[in-house]
Structure formats: structure tokens, C-alpha cells
């Protein structure tokens, strides 16, 4: 097969060959307990592919006396369904509340598996999903294929921030910040000290920037710093004790902002800047995400450095 034909039909080839590996599209989800009643389902530190079915982001849940509070639902209906089965193996409690952290498709397209429960996000996220939700779902379908079968945008309804649950074991609040997207919802349990930070925090996986405003993102990270959570569950990457995941995300954003500004001041073009290496040894997908971030962010910075 020649290169050109492969580039045209590469996706088809991949989805054919991977569907057999996928074993009936089983995401093989596993819950990892990070604190009392508190679980994380860690996604792969990869980009979307028909091999991983879009399972690249974390979901998590807290089992309370009133029911399960779920933070994000994954990339597809199949994921949502398998996540619900996994939760059912851990607790008999019903699903009390489902939250969507932000508009990105790897975080909310499993909503359809929870349509009998209240599914909420911020108002801003809903407004964005009304505009781009279907396109994001279609885009993911193109990238991961049949894993997405029957997945539809299941619209969340708005929820106010602030305390949503408290008893002697848990004191849970919702905090809305912005920077990774224009609305990033976090779930924080003051009692256990676990912060579900959504995509405001990445760990050992390069942050993504398709809807990012980097200065706002850094402000959001300083808010996280003030909270002093005991454990941070990032949107992508392993949960960490203490603040290291937040610090790594912050260091990366500083590096990215400085690199783009310096490059624009030198007059560099895209294909020169994309060669630069982020100095984070453990971080996956650095070159890939830098190239994407250049598309999202560099053009405006380039123009600002002209007269």
C-alpha cells in the first residue's frame, strides 16, 4: 500500500485491525481507591485511537450514604455503561449525582448510561455543548470508530457551585474555575482532602490546549494551591499525593508560555517551534501536544509580536 493511500484510509485500517483486539469493545475499567469511599478510574496516557476507544481521561466517584457522586463519564456510551457496571461491583448505592467537568468529549460522552440520574455541569459548559457538542462527538467517532456506537450528546443540566453534600465522612463542594476551558468544574472533598481537578491538572501526560487560556489556567492552579488538597486526581494521569501534579502542570504552562513568546520574538515559524522539547522527562505526548498547542495558541502570539 502506498503512503498516500495509507494516509487516506489509515483510520479504516486501524479500526478494522483493532476491533478484534478490542474484545467486544471492553475498556477493561478498574477502580483504584484513593481515600475512604473514593475511587478513580484511570485512563491511558495516550491520544485518541481506535485501540484505546477514547479511554484517555480519568473518571472518579465518591460513595456516600445518600448514593454515588460521579465525576465525569468518559468518552462513549460503552464506557459509561461499563463504568456503571464497575460502580455496581463496588457498591449497591444508587447513582445520586453525575457531574461533567467541562466540554471535552472524553469527559462527558458516557452520560447516556446515566440518563435516569441527574447529570449536571456548569451553565457555561452547557452553553458550549449546545454549540459544539455534536461536532465533538462526531470528531471522536472519526478518531476511535465503533467504540462510539450509539453514543449521543446527553445534555447536562446546570448546577450551582458550593457545597453539594456533607455528613460525618464527607464534605463535598463544587468549585468552578477556568483556564483549560472556559469553565472547569472541580469536586473537592474537604474531609478526605481529595480534589477531582478535571483537566486543570495533568500528570506525566502533556496538557492539552484546544480551548485554553493559559494565564487563566495558571490563576486556577494558584487557587488549587490555596486549597492544599491531600490528593489530586488529575483529568489525565495518575492521582498524586500532595501538590506535585498541580506543580508539574504549572511548570509546563510556564514553559509553554515562555517558549511561544520567545519564539515569536525571534520570528520563528510553526515548523521551527515544533522542534523544541519540553524539559519534562516523565511526560508523555510532549511533541504531539506541543504541535497541537502551536495551532491553538501560537498564531495569535506571532501576530502580537508584529508591529
Amino acid at each position: 500500500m502506498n503512503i498516500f493511500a495509507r494516509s487516506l484510509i489509515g483510520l479504516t485500517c486501524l479500526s478494522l485491525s483493532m476491533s478484534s483486539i478490542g474484545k467486544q469493545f471492553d475498556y477493561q475499567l478498574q477502580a483504584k481507591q484513593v481515600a475512604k469511599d473514593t475511587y478513580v478510574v484511570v485512563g491511558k496516557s495516550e491520544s485518541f485511537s481506535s485501540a484505546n476507544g477514547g479511554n484517555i481521561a480519568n473518571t472518579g466517584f465518591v460513595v456516600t450514604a445518600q448514593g454515588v457522586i460521579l465525576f465525569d463519564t468518559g468518552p462513549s456510551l460503552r464506557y459509561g455503561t461499563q463504568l456503571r457496571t464497575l460502580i455496581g461491583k463496588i457498591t449497591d448505592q444508587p447513582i445520586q449525582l453525575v457531574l461533567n467537568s467541562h466540554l471535552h468529549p472524553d469527559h462527558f460522552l458516557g452520560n447516556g448510561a446515566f440518563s435516569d440520574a441527574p447529570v449536571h455541569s456548569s451553565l457555561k459548559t452547557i452553553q458550549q455543548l449546545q454549540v459544539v457538542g455534536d461536532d465533538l462527538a462526531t470528531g471522536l467517532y472519526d478518531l476511535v470508530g465503533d467504540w462510539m456506537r450509539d453514543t449521543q450528546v446527553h445534555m447536562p443540566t446546570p448546577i450551582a457551585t458550593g457545597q453539594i453534600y456533607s455528613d460525618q465522612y464527607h464534605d463535598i463542594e463544587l468549585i468552578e474555575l477556568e483556564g483549560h476551558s472556559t469553565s472547569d468544574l472541580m469536586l473537592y472533598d474537604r474531609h478526605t482532602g481529595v480534589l477531582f481537578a478535571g483537566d486543570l491538572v495533568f500528570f506525566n501526560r502533556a496538557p492539552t490546549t484546544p480551548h485554553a487560556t493559559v494565564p487563566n489556567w495558571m490563576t486556577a492552579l494558584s487557587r488549587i494551591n490555596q486549597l492544599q488538597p491531600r490528593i489530586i486526581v488529575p483529568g489525565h494521569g495518575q492521582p498524586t499525593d500532595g501538590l506535585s501534579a498541580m506543580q508539574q502542570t504549572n511548570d509546563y504552562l510556564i514553559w509553554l508560555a515562555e517558549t511561544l513568546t520567545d519564539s515569536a520574538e525571534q520570528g520563528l515559524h510553526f515548523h521551527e517551534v515544533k522542534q523544541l522539547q519540553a524539559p519534562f522527562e516523565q511526560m508523555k505526548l510532549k511533541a504531539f501536544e506541543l504541535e497541537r498547542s502551536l495551532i491553538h495558541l501560537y498564531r495569535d502570539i506571532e501576530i502580537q509580536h508584529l508591529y
Partner: protein
Amino acid sequence: MKSHKCIANGFILGLSISLTSLSQANTNDPTDSPMWDYLKTKYIPNQSYQFDQRIIVQTPLFAEDATQVPITIDATAIPNVEKILVLADISPFQKVLEFTPGKFTPQLSFSMKVQQATAVRAMVLTKSGVWHVGSGLIDASGGGCSAPSIGLADPAWQDYLGEIRARWFSANHLTGEKQRLKFHIIHPQDTGLADSIPAFFIEQLHIDNQQGNTIARLQLFEPVSENPTMTLEKLGTTETLTLHFRDNNGNEFTRQVKP
């Protein structure tokens, strides 16, 4: 995504290691694009050409934003370049731009729109009348998790139509021994394909020196991205130049660039 990366890397590698086979005319399309025969018949009928791997066509790994795909073309290894015609094999508009470098070096960076995966050609005509063809590939299937320009389009662009920004960047350790000119103009570059929006795009740019002589020309076509930013290079010193843009509605936009 990984497989796409491999294809692109392999392709670039191929460019850099196969310099030996250049002396004899090579008419085998390195991209094996089904459109090449059509392209050559339409754009360079009965003219002599060869695929030439000395011409570097840099493309992204994938089109994260299909409306802004950055391309860098470098034909400085080809002596006596008259002009560079950039074509996209699979596109409603195959002609992307035509660059007559004049006093500039035969290389440029810009962004273009793509409809789907395509080969991009840098057709370099030498003063002796031979076409040297460089090729690159754009994989339009990537991206995902993004709808970059949604909500970012400035509804008030009319107020800024034709606003030009520009700057000379002196030679430095990153840009090499050449002086670099980067410029940007606000223009919608509408192709005429979208419903009820007529074609409206920059057609011509000429760059004049202080004596009023044109020292480089660019002809732009529909695929050049909205609000184009372009980078050109020049040996010698920076100098005061004037950029003259003209769009298909006859609007003219002018801007002087000082060192």
C-alpha cells in the same frame, strides 16, 4: 495517531537521505497520489519536470485545524529559481499560491485550508524552464478534542479589514544568516464555497523597495487561510519595503515595513 506520525516521519526521513539520486530526472511521484497525472496535465502541460527531493515541504503531523495548516517550503537548494507554484492535489481549489521570490530567497511559510488528506506540491520553475517538484502530505484526519475556531471568530472583522502588521527579524542563531520578513493581514479569505458568502480573498501581493521597484510577488488563491501570516527570507540587509495587497474586489491595502 501513532501510525500517522510514523508515516509523516518516514516521509521526512526519506527527503533527507535520498539526495544521491537527483542528477537524473525523476518522474516517479514520491507520494503516489492518484491526482498527479491530472495536476501535471492541467498546470504544466507538455513541460519538462522532475520530482526533486532537494525541495523541502514541511507539513504538520495532522491537520489539528483544517482551516489553518502551516506549511513551510524551502527551495533554496535549487539554483536560479524563477517562481514557486504551490498546489494541493485533493482540494476544490488546487492552486494555493504562486511566489516569485525576486530578491528574496525561494522559501516561504504560510497556512492553508484543507478539505481532506492531500499531497501538497511546491512546483519550482527554474530560469532554464524546468519544473522541480517537491511534495509533502497533510493528514486531515487528526485533531479530535477540538473545534479551535469556534467562538473565536471576531464578528467585527470588517472594522479591521486590510489591517497589516509586519516586522523584520534580523538574522540570529535561530533564523540563520538571512533576514526574515513576517507579515499579517486581516482578510476573511472567503472561498465562495460556503452558502451565500461570495469569494472574497487577497489575490496579489507585491513588495517594492524604496526606489519603487518590485522585488518580489505573490499571487494568492482561495486555499490560503483567513487572516494570512507569511514569512519570507532575504540575504543581505534589512531595508525599508512597501507591501501592496490587492483583493478580488479591487480593495488595495498598503503598508511600509522599516528595518
